[in-house]
Structure formats: structure tokens, C-alpha cells
């Protein structure tokens, strides 16, 4: 028989020391004296103390209050306080043990029956995790957080298969690459690489910094790429709620996207197949956006926001951009989108109605003034779409064009001169209305779902 320390009990123990205003260094050394082995590194204790201070730590959070309270009491027991005093301290810290519970715990501690141990670990294979059939192991795996899943899949190929075939959901994920700072966040898991003093550092949440001596930029980027692949690609059933990707070029000639975005001739790249609902992309040219969207499941992707930070990038030729936009509007992923926001790049679009009418919310800038017929055609199509929220098409109208539109719609809007005038159209067989506004720089359509009837803005 062997035993492991319970991580929540350790957390409760450290929380007690935190409330007693003990420094992180002292808490680290106190813990080390008890456990006789390093259960938490100094950096972890420091991070935890910072977290406790900033996040208003709650002993009841999650479902491990029981273990945290036991660790908390153990800390007080070692400080030789009475059970009654410990009960009061625990109450003040938010714990819900009764006085009777605290007395029993103290008795157990006196008898040497409690030492923040996790569980007694049996060495008998007949009493191990292996006795469980695979379908129950999968159930257990469903409860693992991302960090534990990544650790679990490294234990054996069979377990890797179990982890990779079970369902998993990441609510919020971020990937950031600016050459010397690489960052991945997925739910509660974070990993960073930073270049400082000509050395690469790697660190994870609540873990110590690791210096990567003699690691080259290529090696670190390759690790970054592998980690992305591991988190986002290894499980085909993975669903992601929101994914933010930000790539920036700190200097000319550096293309961070090559580590992230699949190119046409390199299929096995990170983000090979994504089941994501909301995408926020920054620093993506149209070609990158196109390549990236191709890797997303069209039945799941609903919202895309793109910001194009093109500093240091070569400008694409007009015909190439035009071709790329044409391909974008033809993508299955594009046709199934509900929302698209893209203010920084100018779309080259031949037909407004066929490109944008399916969207419930859009805010895009167009390369050139469209003919009046196209705006009218778009209006007719939108009148067949009663789920419209708002569609803003940004142009830079010529004076003639603006006058032509004003004359046609019978309104004249110059924003500083007062409230904008709107033209109202009724939806067929419905009391709902579509509103249209034309200003020198944009055309705005507002449908029945404007202003938070579907979504709150």
C-alpha cells in the first residue's frame, strides 16, 4: 500500500496559511516539512497565493470543499489550536463543517489517521483502474480537465485512444503568436513560451518556469505547433465554443501564420479539423482566412470576426485577392455562417445579394461602390429573411453615387446634421419590418431581430 496527497487538501492547507498571512516562501517550506517531498513548487505556491488574493478564493468552489476543509483544519491542527478555535476559523473562511465534524477530524489527526492523503493506493492490479471496462473509463475521462487529459493520454497507447475518442468541449481557447511570445490557452490550461535574455522560457499555469537551454526559435515554434496539434487536433469529437487566434508580425519578413494556418500544399498542420462555433481571427489575410475556414466544420461554425493587422506583410495583388474572395463566398462554411464582422479589409464582391444575404449579422467594408441594382436585389433577398439582425455595408461613396441613392430612396442623411432617416419596408405576410438607411459611407439594413431579440449586444 502507498498513498498520494490530495491536491485539494494541499490547496486547503495553503489557503489556511494564506489567511494567516504567512509568506509564500514560508508556506512552501512548511508544506515541504509535512509532505517530505515537493508536492507544490515555490512558483506554484506563489501563483496560488496571487490567485487567492486576486480572485477572492472560495473554499466552497467546485465540489471539493470537503477535502479543502480537511487540509485547512490540518494546518490549524499543526499549529496546535483547539478544535473550537479551528471551527471558528473555518467558518470565517467560508467552510461548512460542523463543530462536531471538526472535533472528529482533530481526533483523527491526533491518532495519526489523517495526513492530507488522497487515497490509499492499492498495489493490487485487481483493485486498479484497469478493472473498469472501457466504457466506464471513458466516463471518467469525460470528467478530466484538459491538463489531466493530456497527461492521461501519455500513460499508454490504449489510454491515448480512449482520450482521443471520447467527447470533449473547450469553451474558450486562445492562440497567440508574435514570434517571441507564444501562448496557448484552452479552458483552464495555459502554456507560454517567451524569449527573454536570449533564452527561451516555457511555463504553464501554477507551474515553475522551465528554461530551455540552447533551444532555437525553430525548435520552440515546432513545440508550439505540436502543442496546438495535440490540444486541438488529437480528438475528432472535440468541440470548441470560441477560438481566438492572434498572429502578429513584429518585423518584416516574419510570417507567424505558417506555424498555425494550414497551407494548400501542407495538409498535416495544426488546426487540421475544427469543430468551432465562434472564431475571432486577427492578422489573417484573405488567403489565410480562406485556408482556415476550409478546415472548420461547416455545420458548426456560426460566427466569424476578423481583424487584419497587415503590418509587415506584402500586399497581395488585386486579382489574387479578388479570386480569394470569390472562393470565400463559394465555401460551404461561408454559406452556413450567421455572423461575419470584418472591418479592416475591403471585400471585393461581384454580387452583394448572393454573397451576404444569408447572414443574420454582418459588418463589412467593400472595395468599390456597388450599382444601385445590387443594393435593391440585396434588399429583396433580405425581405425573404425574417431572421435578420443588422447588416452594415461600409463603402466610400462618390458624391454622384450618394446622390443617386438618396434620390432613389427619397432620403438624405448626413450624420452631423441630425437623426438619420430610415426607409421602412414590410415583410411579406408579416407585421415585421426591414429598415434601410443610407449615409455617405454606409448602407445599413435592420431586420426584425435587431437589438437583441436573438442576441443581446
Amino acid at each position, binding site marked *: *500500500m*502507498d498513498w*498520494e496527497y490530495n*491536491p*485539494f487538501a494541499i490547496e486547503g492547507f495553503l489557503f489556511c496559511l494564506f489567511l494567516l498571512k504567512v509568506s509564500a516562501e514560508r508556506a512552501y517550506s512548511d508544506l515541504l516539512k509535512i509532505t517530505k517531498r515537493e508536492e507544490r513548487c515555490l512558483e506554484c505556491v506563489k501563483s496560488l497565493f496571487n490567485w487567492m488574493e486576486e480572485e477572492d478564493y472560495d473554499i466552497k468552489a467546485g*465540489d*471539493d*470543499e*470537503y*477535502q479543502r476543509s480537511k487540509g485547512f483544519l490540518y494546518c490549524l491542527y499543526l499549529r496546535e489550536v483547539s478544535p473550537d478555535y479551528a471551527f471558528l476559523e473555518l467558518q470565517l473562511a467560508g467552510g*461548512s*463543517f*460542523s463543530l*462536531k*465534524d471538526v472535533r*472528529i*477530524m482533530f481526533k*483523527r489527526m491526533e491518532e495519526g489517521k489523517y495526513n492530507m492523503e*488522497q*487515497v*490509499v*493506493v*492499492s*498495489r*493490487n*492490479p*485487481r*483493485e*486498479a*483502474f*484497469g*478493472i*473498469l*471496462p472501457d*466504457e*466506464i473509463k471513458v*466516463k*471518467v*475521462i*469525460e*470528467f*478530466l*480537465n484538459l*491538463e*489531466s487529459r493530456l*497527461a*492521461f493520454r*501519455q*500513460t*499508454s*497507447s*490504449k*489510454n491515448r485512444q480512449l482520450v482521443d475518442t471520447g*467527447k*470533449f*468541449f473547450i469553451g474558450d481557447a486562445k492562440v497567440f503568436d508574435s514570434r517571441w511570445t507564444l501562448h496557448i490557452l484552452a479552458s483552464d490550461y495555459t502554456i507560454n513560451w517567451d524569449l527573454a535574455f536570449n533564452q527561451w522560457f516555457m511555463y504553464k499555469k*501554477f507551474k515553475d518556469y522551465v528554461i530551455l537551454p540552447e533551444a532555437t526559435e525553430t525548435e520552440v515554434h515546432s513545440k508550439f505547433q505540436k502543442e496546438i496539434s495535440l490540444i486541438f487536433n488529437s480528438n475528432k469529437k472535440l*468541440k470548441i465554443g470560441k477560438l481566438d487566434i492572434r498572429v502578429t508580425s513584429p518585423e518584416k519578413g516574419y510570417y507567424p501564420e505558417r506555424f498555425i494556418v494550414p497551407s494548400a500544399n501542407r495538409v498535416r498542420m495544426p488546426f487540421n479539423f475544427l469543430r468551432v462555433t465562434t472564431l475571432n481571427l486577427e492578422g489573417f489575410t484573405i488567403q489565410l482566412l480562406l485556408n482556415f475556414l476550409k478546415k472548420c466544420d461547416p455545420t458548426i461554425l456560426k460566427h466569424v470576426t476578423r481583424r487584419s493587422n497587415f503590418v509587415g506583410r506584402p500586399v497581395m495583388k488585386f486579382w489574387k485577392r479578388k479570386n480569394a474572395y470569390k472562393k470565400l463566398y463559394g465555401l460551404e462554411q461561408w454559406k452556413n455562417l450567421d455572423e461575419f464582422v470584418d472591418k479592416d479589409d475591403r471585400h471585393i464582391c461581384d454580387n452583394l445579394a448572393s454573397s451576404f444575404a444569408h447572414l443574420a449579422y454582418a459588418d463589412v467594408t467593400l472595395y468599390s461602390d456597388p450599382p444601385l441594382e445590387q443594393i435593391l436585389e440585396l434588399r429583396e433577398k433580405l425581405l425573404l429573411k425574417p431572421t435578420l439582425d443588422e447588416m452594415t455595408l461600409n463603402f466610400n461613396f462618390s458624391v454622384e453615387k450618394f446622390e443617386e441613392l438618396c434620390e432613389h430612396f427619397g432620403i438624405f442623411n448626413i450624420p452631423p446634421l441630425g437623426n438619420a432617416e430610415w426607409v421602412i419596408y414590410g415583410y411579406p405576410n408579416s407585421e415585421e419590418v426591414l429598415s434601410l438607411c443610407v449615409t455617405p459611407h454606409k448602407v445599413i439594413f435592420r431586420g426584425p431581430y435587431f437589438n437583441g431579440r436573438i442576441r443581446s449586444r
Partner: protein
Amino acid sequence: MSVENAPVVDVDEAAIPVEKKMYYRFESNDKKEFRVSELAIQQSETLNRLVEAMGYTSEDVENKPAIAIENIDGKTLKLVFQWCEHHKGEAIPVDDGSVPKIVEIPEFDAKLMDIDNGLLFKLIWAADYLNIVQLLNVSCKKVANMAQGKTPAQLRRVYLLPSDEEDEAAKRAAQEAQDPRAREVEEEFEERKRQGGNSFF
């Protein structure tokens, strides 16, 4: 509620309750007997169906032999029935397949599962076998919590997970044990050894 003495279901030689409720008798594979209320049994889909199919009356429950549960030992079954008694009458959660599953471990369950991991794995196995959805959820969550912050090496130690090599060796051994030719060769070798031959050939 005390930490050590979590509520105990009327087990073993407990007296028959005075109330007019029906208490079924069950027997573990190590011949330990338990009395469990009708309402508590409803937490287990398997047992609930079983007793419904048997259609026992109050007299049958007393006169007929206890219902045997062959695959579960007394120690595990006691925990299972303690859990069922505590949660009797509660709605059984329906698994809608959503991930991540949101399951909170109540204080009673946390205390009940404050056991060694061998027994915990048996409890999970029993919850699955008896189809007790919520007990399976909380016990799986408990096992998952044990993995928090662990490295692969620590996970191997906590869960006693075999490595690929150990898995492979076990597989090979099982194959060899099943292969009649390998067994024949082995028997022949043993026979020659007994007869004093130095070499197999």
C-alpha cells in the same frame, strides 16, 4: 453529520423497521445480507426492474431467500445501499450526452467515497452494473479529481496504469497461454526436465 459515521443503511442484522414500508433483502457474493427500502431501490434501474419482475409481497420478502447479487462483495454493496438510502426519492438524472457534464459531489457522497481507490473502483463498477446513474457520475468525478495536477508518471502510480511494454507483455503471455502448440512445447520441455534431460533438443 459526523465525518466518520456517515449515515448507515440498516444492514446485516438490523431490526425490521416498524413502518409499513417494504424492505427487500439482498445478499452479496460473500454472503452478507442487506435490507433495502423499496424507495431506495428505485435509484438502481437494474434492481428496480428485478424486484418488479419478481413481484414479491411483504411475506415473500421475509420468507423467500435473499436476492443474490453475485458480482459484488459485501463491502462494496454496503456503500451502494448507503448511497441509495440517502438519495432515495431523488430524481434520476437523464444523460443527454452533453459535454462537459456538470456534476457536483455532495458532502454526504464525498464522505462516503473517502475510501481507498481499490474500493472506489469497485464502487464504480457496481454503480455501472446496477445502473445507478448518479452514483456512477459522482464516483467517476471523484476518480477524475484524483488525476488533477498529476504528471503521467504520477497517474500511473495512482491508477496503477500499465505502460505500453507491460500491456504488450501481458498480451503476449495471454496469447501464449491460449496457444495449444506453445503449451505442448512447454509441457514437453517440463517432462524432459523431469526425466533428467539437459537439453530440449
